[in-house]
């Protein structure tokens, strides 16, 4: 399997199916750059949460609003920028879902999972731009 740097810019509408197709493309790029199963699991999970947040909470599923995605995959690092057209939010206002009083709440774990599974996570703009990255840790332990 040859390593290849992938850099892409994609704009999608507020459609979760389109978001999943982008995730599939990224997963393919991660695999071709030798990322291990554990890294791919972490990135896939963070991507799902981030894109659902952008489409559902940011763009409120409005089909006229777009999500702009720029990502880079190389053998050392995965980095992505996701911008929605929503009102944004203050990530510091999101309650800690692991507080005993919040533990049984069925919502509010997306941002927390992103922070835990990625190496770096930053919100910009009015909270409608997310830049996150993951340094490749894993090896090709599961392949070939």
């Amino acid at each position, binding site marked *: 399997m040859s390593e290849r740097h992938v850099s892409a810019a994609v704009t999608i509408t507020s459609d*979760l199916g389109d978001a*999943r197709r982008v995730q599939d493309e990224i997963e393919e790029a991660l695999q071709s750059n030798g990322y291990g*199963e*554990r890294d791919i*699991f*972490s990135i*896939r*999970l963070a991507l*799902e*949460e981030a894109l*659902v947040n952008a489409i*559902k909470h940011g763009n409120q599923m409005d089909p006229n609003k777009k999500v702009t995605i720029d990502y880079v995959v190389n053998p050392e690092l995965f980095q992505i920028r996701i911008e929605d057209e929503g009102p944004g939010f203050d990530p510091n206002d999101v309650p800690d*879902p*692991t507080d005993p009083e919040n*533990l*049984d*709440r*069925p*919502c509010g*774990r*997306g941002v*927390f*999972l992103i922070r*835990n599974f990625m190496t770096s996570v930053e919100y910009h703009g009015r909270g409608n731009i997310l830049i996150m990255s993951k340094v490749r840790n894993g090896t090709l332990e599961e392949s070939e």
Partner: protein
Amino acid sequence: MSQTRQRLIVEDIGDIAVVNFVDKKILDEQNIQMIGDDLFRLVDELGRRKILLNFANVQYMSSAALGKLIRLHQRLHSIGGKLVLCGISKDLYDVFVITKLDKMLTIVKDDKIGLNSF
């Protein structure tokens, strides 16, 4: 025969409903909603009180799916039932540990132990 796609395989072992997931990825919002509806139907319409969810086939799960599990746990708890989770992969188990849901939900290694956890 139902025309809708099967998402769960349910097997009754004694009074325990053992539920296996068909999908490897429980991510899609609509899919999660339907899985949630199917699980709640087991409790509210079919009267099951002991449910063992086997995740052996599941690779990915989003926070929306975690929300459904919490609601199912709460529902069963409120009527004197019990929810047990088993067969969770190492990566997926980390999600439960990080969110501290491993403290709230009963999680065991496999279905054999799960059947003895009620």
